[in-house]
């Protein structure tokens, strides 16, 4: 199994509070991704990174920001959480743009 961890695994927070989710990899893969999974939507890309300090937006990036200061860590921040951001968040990694993406265990976030 690819070495990918996510923290926290579960979080409950209140509307308007900032939240940061962390993805950590031990595979030294160049590409890292954040997806959200919602019923009826499958997984949708929020942001991705193609190197240290190199990031770009995905399909559903509004309300989210990311940072990658080290190869192994990719952070997802909700500056001011809203109830619509209640979801399960997955981190993924890959060696190249078309390599298989391997997923972390997911973080269940509930915004009250």
């Amino acid at each position, binding site marked *: 199994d690819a070495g990918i961890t996510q923290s926290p695994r579960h979080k409950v927070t209140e509307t308007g509070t900032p939240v940061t989710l962390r993805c950590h990899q031990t595979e030294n893969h160049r*590409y890292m*991704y954040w*997806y959200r999974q919602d019923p*009826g*939507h*499958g*997984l*949708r*890309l929020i942001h*991705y990174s*193609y190197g240290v300090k190199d990031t*770009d937006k*995905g*399909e559903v990036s509004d309300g989210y920001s990311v940072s990658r200061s080290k190869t192994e860590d990719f952070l997802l921040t909700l500056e001011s959480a809203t109830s619509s951001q209640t979801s*399960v968040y*997955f981190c*993924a990694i*890959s060696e*190249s*743009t*078309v390599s*298989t*993406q*391997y*997923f972390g*265990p*997911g973080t269940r976030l509930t915004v009250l």
Partner: protein
Amino acid sequence: AQTVTQSQPEMSVQEAETVTLSCTYDTSESNYYLFWYKQPPSRQMILVIRQEAYKQQNATENRFSVNFQKAAKSFSLKISDSQLGDTAMYFCAFVWGLGGSQGNLIFGKGTKLSVKP
């Protein structure tokens, strides 16, 4: 726009039998890759099988095989000798290379498969 359609929201199969999950996709790209992922109740996303579009031979992984019809843009998954542990959500996905949102895996909405004893 690139899309992936899984037309079967739910399916069930008896243990030891064979089941086929359907997937169609729409893309104008010529260089792309197709995947099936499995998500059991543990929520972990697990790669089942991968197919390169430039390869004519259908991919197989033990009891899992695909029927890749490039002209029809169809990518179905066949599970032989179904086991209780195959109970999961199955997602079809594809990614294309060169330009655009590189590495953006496009997912279908999933098929929930139940294997009954």
